[in-house]
């Protein structure tokens, strides 16, 4: 439960340029996870899909 709350907050903060994390989709687990910006070693970084607005990039 806490994990999802944190994820949602991260997504919200990304769109306000208030977040230092990347949003990453981990294909192995099928989960969204967070990683310090530029530090993700696995999965697909999808930060760009949200940080300029959802129906954007």
């Amino acid at each position, binding site marked *: *439960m806490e*994990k*999802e*709350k944190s*994820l*949602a907050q991260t*997504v*919200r903060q990304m*769109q306000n340029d208030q977040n230092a994390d990347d949003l990453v*989709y981990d*294909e192995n687990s*099928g*989960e*969204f996870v967070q990683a310090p910006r530029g530090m993700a070693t696995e999965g*697909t970084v*999808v930060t760009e*899909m*949200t940080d*300029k*607005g*959802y*129906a*954007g*990039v």
Partner: protein
Amino acid sequence: MTQQRLQAEKTVLEQRLKPNTYQFVDMETQKPYLIVGAMTNSGHVYTLKIMLEDFPYQVPRVCVMNELRDKNGKKLGKVSGPMHIIGKYEGHPLICHYGSFSWSPDVSLYKVFIKCRLWLEMYEEHLRSGKPIDYYLKHQS
């Protein structure tokens, strides 16, 4: 969709999704679509229908085939900016992902899936918090 493009899409999905979680259907007809099973971080499973009639030249419509209700128990399916819903299909919500202004034929079905997967995650957050989805996923200004 050309056979070449279809093969390219299949190659990407094979690399990134589990093989038994998606299927291209009716690809030789005028109403081809892709069915994808999406499991959220909390473990709930949803079925996405990605309609491919005009893909990749137009934004594909994406429908969540589950019956979705909002925090107050009201069935989702009407156009709703706050919930990023653009209409309904067979009684189920068509969800916003790419806007037509941001669409390009280069966008892969995998990226469409990721956006819809994110919508599902924020939908569940809406159920927990009561806040609309656009509280988390802002509209592009």
